[in-house]
């Protein structure tokens, strides 16, 4: 009794310790210095929930009964881990990018966010997991039994059922406290993970301690132990290839499909790179776990009396040799294995039950969305908590009903075979775009029916749930439907038989149904997202938010994510959209992000449905999009490509519209231009025609008059020529056909040349030019002639239009940020503000002065400077008219 009391005390202390560890981890994570919580090591250790009490105690029993076959249970997962690059990496990537909360969520999300499928997977997972939870409870009660049994004090028979009940309640409490503390959008539970990592160490240490004690304490050293092993039956194991292959396959499949493994491996994964470490660390962990299994089994068989339960050798060996402390440690190891499994399994299942069964029912019952009052968060958390309690209660009930009998011994593998039915749908979903929802449904249904009929029901014993006549003669008397001999193939191991038929029929039906059926647009879209997860970092556009009310979305999001979290999200998005305040526009992008955030809390299907209720017309745009895509199969393949395409089309349409507007504008400009050209040509021609007619028709003209009129004709002819030259020049410049004659020169030379050209040939040289030649020693590489043309024009303008007397033009050269600036400033009255805006336009003439120009000079200057990579602009506020020429010197050297 004393031992038992101590045992209970130790259990309580241990559980308290776990609470403290989990609590501390949660706190550290919350305070932001929980970096060490997320490490590859913790991740690897958390994976060890694969090693449940069934493996802790059962492996020895397994070895005692079937030799080395127990190794298959470790080989399967090791192969999966070593080959992580192939499947696990993809699963984790999908899990993270799609905010997957459970394996049911992943499958439902992949097959078009089908909640029906999620419900199915959830139910099957519950069916597959319940016996397993019962098994854990059994192992704990059995180990209690061992202690009480070893104690000879009379009347101390512990009530097994109440032990199991207490354990179940304790585990429920722990899971509720740390699994549903808050509705974490990432669905990660640092407290839980760190606690199971600690438990992983405890169980490894316990098993090693027992192993070391057995080999060196009882076996008398390594070599003698090896001799004993050789002498025992286990040493003469024979390997049955089919059973080994099926078991390795089964454990590998279960490793991927078990809801609790999915939880720690994908959902709780913080970083893809952890897989790299886990890929060798986890197999190493498994290897160490299995190291002493055979010695313990052999010595147990040797030392302990005939008929002792080999499943409990790990406990009974130390106890029988009076090592109560070691036995206590070993008990704790088993306890750890059992508790960590139950905690994570119930957490994973509760997420599934809550997200895919309770929440949809609740939502449809209450009208859902933001329209009802109350905090959805509380409902979600409550439903999680109830689900946890329900899952554990189911396990307990199963344990009670099955009487904790020997029927549980084989339940581990049966459970494995059950969840392994997810494998075809899971792998098909992430590797095959053609997989459809119908196929998934059909495959899963067939697989589970076969599993239940061929393995689960017979496991209760003939005549219990399945009558002897069915066992012997097949269902409905059909001989080919005998549970353990399908299609008359007899003589197979029942497990191998069931696994082979269930998985192959499952796979076959899944493939055929997928090939026959046609996936819905959403399935296509999601399929592409999953299969090409490495290419698609973004989710597809699924929502058109025109009808959505941001405020309703906000209310709903607050209820699910919590007020602060939701406000932060909305504010961030509003900022990103450039909207002030808390309400971003319900753009497809935003809805997508919101849906992803929500799906972290309530699962993809539910989140999709909730947003659908508010936005209305669920994913209409996807259907529209896909309807277009149906026509071109190629586009269908890559939804993102399609998306880009539709964006591109919108862009093209916009460009076309712009081009059209521009063309219309250009057409107006062209008309104006032609009209201007016409005017500029006709004006000199009028003078020429009028005076030539005068000269021709008048006989009484004086010599002076003749000279005058002839020179008018001459001047106007030159004006015409100049106009045509300018027009051609401008046309060449504007079309970009101009060939630049790039040379290296010095600014001072170009200005000298320009000034002399501009001022000579002009009758009055009334303009004084002021320069500072020392500032003009700027070396440059450009088209010097064109630059001079610009200068000539500016100087000419000053000469023509400067109305001051005496007229002066100041030329300032300077350098600024790799650019040469040349300012031309005269002392006239300048150009009015309105006119400054138009002087560079073609035919823009300012003021009332007629100076014979057509108004093309500055337009030409502007084009030239643009070709040279610089600019010319009006410089206001300089007293008179001022122009600044800017030329970048990037390619030229300067001596200034």
């Amino acid at each position, binding site marked *: 009794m004393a031992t038992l009391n101590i045992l209970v005390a130790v259990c309580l202390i241990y559980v308290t310790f776990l609470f403290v560890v989990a609590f501390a981890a949660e706190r550290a994570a919350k305070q932001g210095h929980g970096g060490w919580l997320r490490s590859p090591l913790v991740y690897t250790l958390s994976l060890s929930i694969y090693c449940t009490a069934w493996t802790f105690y059962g492996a020895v029993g397994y070895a005692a009964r079937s030799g080395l076959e127990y190794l298959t249970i470790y080989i399967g997962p090791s192969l999966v881990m070593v080959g992580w690059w192939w499947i696990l990496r993809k699963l984790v990537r999908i899990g993270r990018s799609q905010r997957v909360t459970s394996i049911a969520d992943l499958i439902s999300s992949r097959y078009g966010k089908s909640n029906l499928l999620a419900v199915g997977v959830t139910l099957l997972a519950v069916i597959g997991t319940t016996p397993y939870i019962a098994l854990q409870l059994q192992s704990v009660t059995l180990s209690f039994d061992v202690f009480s049994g070893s104690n000879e004090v009379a009347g101390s028979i512990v009530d097994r059922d109440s032990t199991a009940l207490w354990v179940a309640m304790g585990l429920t409490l722990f899971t509720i406290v740390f699994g549903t503390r808050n509705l974490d959008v990432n669905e990660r539970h640092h407290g839980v993970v760190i606690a199971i990592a600690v438990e992983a160490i405890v169980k490894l240490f316990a098993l090693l301690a027992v192993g070391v004690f057995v080999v060196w304490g009882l076996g008398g050293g390594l070599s003698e132990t090896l001799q004993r092993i050789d002498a025992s039956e286990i040493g003469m194991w024979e390997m049955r290839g089919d059973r080994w292959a099926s078991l390795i396959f089964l454990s590998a499949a279960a490793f991927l499909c078990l809801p609790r493994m999915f939880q720690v491996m994908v959902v709780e994964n913080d970083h893809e790179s952890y897989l790299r470490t886990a890929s060798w660390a986890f197999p190493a962990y498994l290897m160490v776990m299995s190291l002493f299994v055979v010695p313990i089994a052999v010595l147990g068989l040797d030392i302990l009396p005939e008929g002792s339960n080999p499943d409990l050798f790990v406990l009974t060996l130390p106890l029988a040799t009076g090592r109560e402390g070691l036995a206590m440690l070993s008990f704790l190891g088993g306890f750890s294995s059992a508790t960590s499994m139950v905690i994570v399994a119930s957490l994973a299942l509760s997420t599934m039950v809550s997200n895919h069964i309770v929440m949809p029912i609740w939502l449809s019952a209450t009208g859902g969305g933001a329209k009802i009052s109350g905090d959805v968060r509380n409902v979600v958390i409550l439903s999680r908590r109830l689900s946890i309690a329900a899952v554990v209660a189911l396990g307990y009930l199963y344990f009670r009903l099955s009487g904790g009998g020997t029927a549980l011994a084989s339940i581990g593998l049966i459970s494995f075979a059950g969840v392994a039915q997810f494998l075809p749908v899971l792998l098909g979903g992430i590797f095959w775009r053609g997989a459809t929802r119908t196929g998934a449904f059909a495959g899963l249904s067939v697989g589970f029916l076969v599993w239940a009929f061929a393995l689960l029901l017979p496991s209760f014993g003939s005549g219990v749930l399945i009558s002897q006549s069915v066992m012997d003669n097949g269902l409905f008397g059909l001989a080919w439907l005998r549970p353990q001999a399908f299609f008359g193939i007899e003589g197979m191991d029942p497990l191998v038989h069931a696994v082979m038929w269930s998985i192959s029929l499952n796979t076959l039906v899944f493939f055929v149904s997928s090939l026959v059926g046609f996936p819905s647009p959403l399935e296509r879209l999601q399929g592409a997202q999953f299969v090409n997860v490495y290419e698609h970092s973004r989710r597809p556009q699924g929502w058109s938010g025109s009808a959505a009310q941001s405020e309703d979305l906000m209310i709903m999001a607050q209820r699910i994510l919590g007020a602060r979290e939701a406000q932060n999200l909305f504010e961030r998005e509003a900022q990103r959209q450039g909207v002030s305040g808390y309400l971003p526009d319900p753009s497809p992008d935003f809805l997508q992000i919101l849906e992803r955030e929500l799906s972290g809390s309530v699962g993809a299907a539910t989140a999709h449905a909730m947003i659908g209720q508010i936005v209305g017309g669920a994913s209409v745009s996807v259907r529209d999009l896909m309807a277009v895509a149906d026509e071109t199969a190629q586009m269908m393949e890559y939804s993102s490509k399609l998306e880009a395409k539709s964006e591109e089309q919108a862009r093209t349409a916009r460009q076309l519209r712009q081009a059209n507007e521009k063309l219309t504008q250009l057409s107006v400009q062209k008309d104006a231009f032609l*009209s201007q050209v*016409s*005017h*500029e040509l*006709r*004006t*000199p*021609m*009028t*003078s*020429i*025609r*009028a*005076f030539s*007619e*005068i000269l021709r*028709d*008048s006989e009484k003209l004086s010599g002076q008059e003749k000279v005058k009129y002839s020179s*008018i004709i001459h*001047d*106007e002819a030159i004006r015409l020529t100049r106009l045509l030259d300018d027009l051609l020049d401008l046309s060449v410049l504007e079309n970009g056909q101009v060939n630049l004659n790039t040379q290296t020169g010095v600014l001072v030379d170009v200005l000298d040349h320009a000034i002399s050209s501009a001022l000579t040939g002009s009758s009055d040289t009334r303009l004084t030019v002021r320069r500072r030649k020392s500032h003009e020693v700027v070396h440059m590489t450009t088209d010097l002639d064109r630059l001079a043309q610009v200068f000539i024009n500016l100087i000419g303008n000053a000469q023509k239009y400067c109305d001051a007397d005496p007229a002066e033009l100041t030329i300032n050269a300077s350098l600024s940020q790799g650019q040469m600036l040349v300012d031309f400033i005269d002392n006239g009255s300048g150009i009015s503000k309105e006119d400054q805006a138009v002087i560079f336009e073609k035919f823009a003439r300012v*003021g*009332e002065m*007629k100076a014979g120009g057509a108004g093309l000079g500055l337009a030409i200057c502007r084009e030239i400077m643009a070709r040279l990579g610089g600019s010319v602009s009006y410089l206001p506020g300089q007293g008179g008219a001022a122009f600044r020429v800017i030329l970048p010197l990037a390619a030229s050297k300067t001596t200034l």
Partner: protein
Amino acid sequence: MGKRVLLIEDEPNIIEAISFILSRDGWSVSTHSNGHDAVDVVKESTPDLLILDVMLPGKSGFDILKELRETTSAETLPVLMLTARGQKADREMAERAGASRFMTKPFSNSEVLDAVRELVGS
């Protein structure tokens, strides 16, 4: 005494040409070369005929004509419009503004003379 013609045109050479042609034919020609105060000049000088260019600095010939047609003194004044932009639209605009005659540059001297004679004679 010859009839008085007012020429509103901003191109000095064209002013010179038309003045020469009309003077030689016995007209008394006065000229004005911007649009701003053209209306006032017309009202003051009360010519027998107005020759009006379309493109004038300050105010377009069309606007000047419209204003003139709204004042009683110049309601019936014969107006010969000159334009260097020989487009159909300009002709229509001139008609709407109330031009008696419309002529596109370049013109022949005899055409101008004929038009002027016709307009004043009628």
